[in-house]
């Protein structure tokens, strides 16, 4: 087990090296002139003469071989310098640091109910196979699985914002922002809703929540569907296993057969899916933060990508990939903890 974790942790920098190398080499397709546009104001850029262009390319080292530049960038990363983001007009590292709490807040609120209630409902569906609840959950799951998040997001905005006026887009209201930015408002965790509570500002807490509900609904809809499906089918499979029969042969009451003997086993495949889910949720923040116009890593990445702010792109990819790899590792460990048969090695 320990050996396995060490092995994976040793592989982590190697994989990150590969990831950044892939993205970096893709950016080379652009050629030095395009790359330069990330450094220069577009209005100025159009008016530059060829010589001026060459000079600037020289200045930023854009005509050096790719390897040299990659290792330069890598050296920067190791020193904590991810470069300058044109879109955010601040260092990439700083920009990421500021945005992470917002994305974590969104992901956290989305994940917890899905895992808590989703698993419970999935088990209920399997136990009540072919009854009303089961059919309802199955239909919900298959539709949810087919409903793209951006379509759903638009619908949520239409109904809950424009029609009902309940959940506005954005991160917080203007009045709240003023208070939050003032020195009296202490940032403990940088997670807005929690800080609001810690500052005793229920009004701000409520405001943050109002801005969160739409995005949470949108981002977790798909995963509700997915988790329900997997829990249900995994539970159904386990209920047909022989050890379930053994439990019944011992005279174990049905309630314990399901919630003790079967469920613990059914959770093993669900953990893998829950892992995919956490990772999917993170990627989903891109779309949701754009639709709801929220501050966060997702929108930052989308802006960086669409505007070829490649220092920011590389930084974001580095961030997302690290989260993804560590997330997968945690899942594997959880998996081993749940299933005594697995000896990772």
């Amino acid at each position, binding site marked *: 087990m320990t050996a396995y974790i060490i092995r994976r942790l040793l592989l982590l920098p190697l994989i990150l090296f590969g990831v950044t190398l892939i993205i970096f080499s893709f950016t080379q397709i652009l050629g030095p002139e395009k790359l330069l546009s990330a450094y220069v104001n577009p209005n100025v850029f159009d008016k530059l003469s060829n010589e001026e262009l060459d000079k600037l390319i020289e200045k930023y080292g854009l005509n050096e071989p790719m390897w040299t530049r990659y290792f330069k960038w890598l050296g920067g990363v190791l020193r904590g310098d991810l470069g300058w983001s044109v879109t955010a007009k601040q260092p990439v590292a700083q920009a990421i640091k500021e945005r992470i709490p917002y994305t974590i807040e969104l992901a956290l609120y989305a994940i917890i109910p899905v895992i808590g209630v989703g698993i419970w409902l999935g088990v209920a569906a399997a136990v009540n196979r072919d009854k009303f609840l089961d059919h309802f959950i199955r239909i919900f799951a298959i539709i949810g699985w087919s409903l793209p998040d951006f379509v759903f997001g638009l619908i949520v905005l239409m109904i809950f914002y424009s029609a009902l006026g309940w959940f506005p887009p954005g991160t917080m209201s203007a009045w709240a922002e003023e208070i939050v930015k003032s020195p009296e408002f202490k940032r403990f965790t940088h997670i807005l809703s929690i800080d609001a509570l810690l500052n005793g500002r229920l009004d701000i807490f409520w405001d943050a929540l109002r801005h969160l509900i739409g995005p949470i609904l949108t981002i977790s809809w798909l995963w509700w569907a997915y988790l329900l499906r997997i829990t249900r089918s995994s539970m159904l499979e386990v209920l047909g296993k*022989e050890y379930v029969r053994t439990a*019944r042969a*011992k005279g174990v009451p049905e309630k314990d057969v399901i919630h003790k003997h079967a469920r613990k086993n059914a959770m*093993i495949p669900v953990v893998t899916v829950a892992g995919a889910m956490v990772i999917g949720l993170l990627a989903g923040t891109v779309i949701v933060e754009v639709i709801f116009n929220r501050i966060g890593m997702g929108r930052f990445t989308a802006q960086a990508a669409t505007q070829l702010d490649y220092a920011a792109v590389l930084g974001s990819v580095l961030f997302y990939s690290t989260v993804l790899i560590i997330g997968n590792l945690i899942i594997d460990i959880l998996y081993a903890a749940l299933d005594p048969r697995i000896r990772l090695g």
Partner: protein
Amino acid sequence: MEKKPLLEVKNLKTYFYTEDGIVKAVDGVDFEVYPGETLGIVGESGSGKSVTSLSIMRLLDPNGEIIEGSQIIFEGKNLLELSDDEMRKIRGNDIAMIFQEPMVALNPVFTIGEQIMEAILLHQDVSKTEARKMAIEMLQKVGIPEPEKRIDEYPHELSGGMRQRAMIAMALSCRPKLLIADEPTTALDVTIQAQILELMKELQKEYGMAIILITHDVGVIAENADRVVVMYGGMVMETANVRELFKEMRHPYTWGLLNSLPRLDIEQERLYNIPGIVPDPLHFPPGCRFNTRCEFADEKCRKEIPPLYEVNKEHFSRCFYYQKVEEAQKLKKAGESA
């Protein structure tokens, strides 16, 4: 000798409803089990022997159904009329069961101890520490070395033989009156099989329980059963006391089965072949279930299902020609070898 049976199975019919049609897995089975004896049920795949045992426990898959008119009488109570809750109290307490594959029959995510203690706590009014002590005692009794250590191990950490011992410990922890052992040694090596069968015999002596031993291995039956039920195609073909069955077969299937076995105790020139293939439970032939493979089958056998004829008080055969079976076969064999 007139003992009262512990368990009586009367006209048991268990059907499964599948997409391809109705599978009459068990189709009118009768037998009794007396206290303290070992009843062997022998049969090939699809004979209905395992479904019979699951029917007694009422542990069929959801698509299986015990047909109206079947009776399973245990200590005077018809198990089929009990409520789920009453049945639950009998399972594991009065009737316990062990299965073929201890690897899949034990829950992989709980320790051996947790699984044995669960059975004890369910049926006996004891505290957790007492239950643990009892579980350790049981493990000791079934011959698991270092039971204090093994009790906290997971099933996959034990060898096949040890797992089956743990399974037996679990089944016997509440001192059942009847133990149903469904192919308990099939998945094990022969030297381990000998250990397990010996252990079961010892424990039977000690506890005085009755055992239903279900197996496809005629040898295991010969060495362990007191009485034998031979099943084929969801029906009982022959039933008799073990000595008599192996000496005076009154059914062509039993005869064929016993003569097609390679044996250690005698020299064999050539094995007998039962021709044809094991029938598909979806498409049993009309008439006697064995008629397609029986060398003596005639028109009558192809039309009518023979009743269970009484050869003597302990010996029954489902063959129209049960009186002639042995001579006919002997003659035939003599003719072949000549």
